[in-house]
């Protein structure tokens, strides 16, 4: 049997300190560095070139310039384990963008074939579309937070749902903060992954709450706080194991996945780690503190208060 008896609640100030520091860093990163938004939010074109073995960045940039593509940025990238390029332009007309890609490839292949014909991906987003995408993302976020709030309120109680949401906001802020810090592009895929991970990290929080609820019935022999601490310890092995088993496939995807898959994997990885932590470090202690203010539990707390 794996039994733990860690005093999470006694050390809650340390955990709050860690969380607040991370949130402060995240907010600072968001304020000063800002987020890099993907083409889906801004409009424009992204050309992904794969299998460009042996083509240098300068050669690619020259080909792009020779093809007459204006204000293009050429970035080397490993696409699916192969040397590749990501070319960003401000073109919003798909026919033009595809013509540009063909022309650039033709320029590069003028003397010898360097990249296989048509072996690229061209994504073109029209002007104004970003607004719809952003709105849809925000609405989806709001709706799922509301639905979660409602579900947890009905199934458990509103104090649990409010603290669960606090933990989720904590996770979102930290994930976005890390994106701002490392300058990784935020795409609709990121938002989708983040939304999913919200629901998922609630998983942990709910399991802890579930146990606290079970143990709180007929509570007389100890304070709510120490019962909550015991509850966390009871589900700790499960928490660690489930977090690890969810994290493993996602991290493997982060290592092996191509461009789109990496988008998901990074947000999922950060979200899962932060979510596992916030269930124990944020949601449970805040909930317990809140409950201790109820007269019934305040009396218990007084009775069992350490001298």
């Amino acid at each position: 049997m794996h039994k733990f008896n860690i005093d999470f609640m006694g050390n809650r100030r340390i955990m709050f300190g860690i969380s607040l520091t991370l949130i402060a860093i995240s907010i600072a990163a968001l304020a000063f560095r800002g987020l890099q938004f993907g083409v889906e939010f801004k409009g424009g074109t992204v050309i992904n070139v794969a299998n460009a073995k042996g083509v240098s960045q300068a050669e690619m940039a020259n080909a792009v310039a020779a093809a007459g593509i204006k204000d293009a940025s050429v970035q080397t990238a490993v696409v699916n384990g192969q040397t590749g390029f990501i070319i960003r332009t401000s073109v919003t007309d798909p026919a033009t963008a595809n013509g540009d890609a063909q022309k650039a490839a033709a320029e590069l292949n003028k003397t010898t074939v360097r990249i296989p014909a048509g072996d690229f991906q061209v994504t073109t987003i029209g002007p104004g579309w970003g607004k719809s995408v952003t709105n849809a993302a925000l609405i989806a976020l709001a709706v799922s937070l509301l639905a979660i709030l409602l579900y947890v309120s009905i199934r458990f109680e509103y104090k649990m749902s409010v603290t669960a949401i606090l933990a989720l906001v904590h996770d979102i802020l930290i994930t976005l903060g890390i994106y701002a810090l490392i300058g990784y592009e935020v795409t609709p895929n990121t938002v989708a992954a983040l939304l999913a991970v919200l629901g998922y990290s609630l998983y942990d929080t709910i399991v802890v709450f579930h146990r606290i609820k079970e143990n709180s019935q007929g509570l007389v022999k100890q304070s709510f706080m120490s019962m909550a601490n015991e509850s966390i310890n009871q589900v700790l092995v499960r928490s660690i194991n489930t977090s690890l088993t969810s994290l493993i496939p996602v991290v493997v995807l982060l290592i092996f996945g191509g461009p789109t898959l990496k988008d998901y994997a990074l947000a999922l990885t950060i979200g899962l780690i932060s979510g596992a932590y916030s269930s124990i470090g944020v949601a449970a202690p805040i909930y317990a503190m809140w409950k201790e203010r109820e007269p019934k539990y305040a009396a218990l707390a007084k009775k069992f208060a350490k001298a």
Partner: protein
Amino acid sequence: MDPKQRNYLLLALCAILVIGSWVMFFPPAKKITQGLDIRGGLSVILTAKPRAEQQLSSDDMDRAVLIINNRVNKLGASETSVQKQGSDSILVQIPGIKNAQEALNVLQSTGQLEFVEVSTITDTATVAAIESAQQNVQLKPGTYKPFMTGDVVTNASVAQDPQSGKIVVNATMNPAGTKTWAAVTTRLFPTHAQVAIVLDGVVKSAPQVQDAILDGRTQISGNFTAQEAKDLATVLQTGALPVSLAPVDTRVVGPTLGQQSLQQGVLAALIGLAIVAIYLVAFYRGLGLISVVGLIVFGSLFLGLLATLSAFGLFALSLPGIAGIVLTIGLAADSSILINERFREEIGLGKTIRSAAASGTRHAIGTSVDADLVTFVSALALFVIAIGPVKGFALTLMLGIFCDIVMMLIFSRPLIILMAESVFPKAPAFWGIPREVSVTGSVAGKKGGAVSA
């Protein structure tokens, strides 16, 4: 039916479903439809804006979808799909990208053809431009009134004018159009007045009427390239769009790029699965082994479901979809861990193996379903509200959650309860049970501690 029989029946059902799934999905590369981001092709979301001051009606959208569908079919690609998305968007998917450029031109063109008497155009500068044989004169809205529109065109074909050698489009009209065309040409030919043939507000040609045309045929010349003429013929045959469509999200994917991404995704999923399996067995031994078989059952059911949906044309696996599948591997492992932990914990509280198996699985599944439902709610919100490729992620996530719950109910729970009777007691240590715990009787020194509901 006694509980034992019911559990055997559930396991039999599970076996049938797993075998059925394998029949459905094997080989997966053929049985599970691949999305365009994987097999390569053109995928474009077109968003409609109503013309002039009209409101965008759902009738207009349905008509636009029909017309776009006709146009896509005329492109000659197979397995194309045209779907309405939301209230104002159309998703068009065409496998293969050979003709991406052509397809984009044809899809975007409104295709509003108008016949206008040049003498009735009120803007004198425009008239002067047309009369001096300028190319592609743009008509200002409100300065002209067509006497006939492209609706009358029943057939259109590309030809070469024998005299000029130019590429032209020959159009044939319906009876009403034939009648109007005859009346106008009869009236105009004595003065050799000009008729402007206008496409989407641009004068394509403005021939002088040389003769009365009574058979409903007309030739549209302009300085067309062969491709432009072909596109125009397609657009004329399929009719004008009641709305103007703008491509807002266009993805053209090369053929090998997507396949590589798929391989990476599958590789990642398999490695992830393998590590999780090793971890489960190392940590839970016997129970871990059951969990691993559970994961295999889950995977089989999941792939079977995807293949079945593919067979009905309801599913295509995209890259975001793969991300969803990878996430659900973790979900399925989670529910097994919940069951294992709860079982061990109830044993630890002094329950008998039998009652720990029954109540442990019941409690753990309860918790799991709660947690699953919350993730499901997020996925559903995403699926309904979000636009574009992320829908694929939400869909596989929801399907995975469904398979997870099914796996727990028809595999994990009945198997653990049945094994608790006869198998667990034979090698208690392997199944994570202290030696002194009995199958049914109570344990000396450890009074049945209560795990509340």
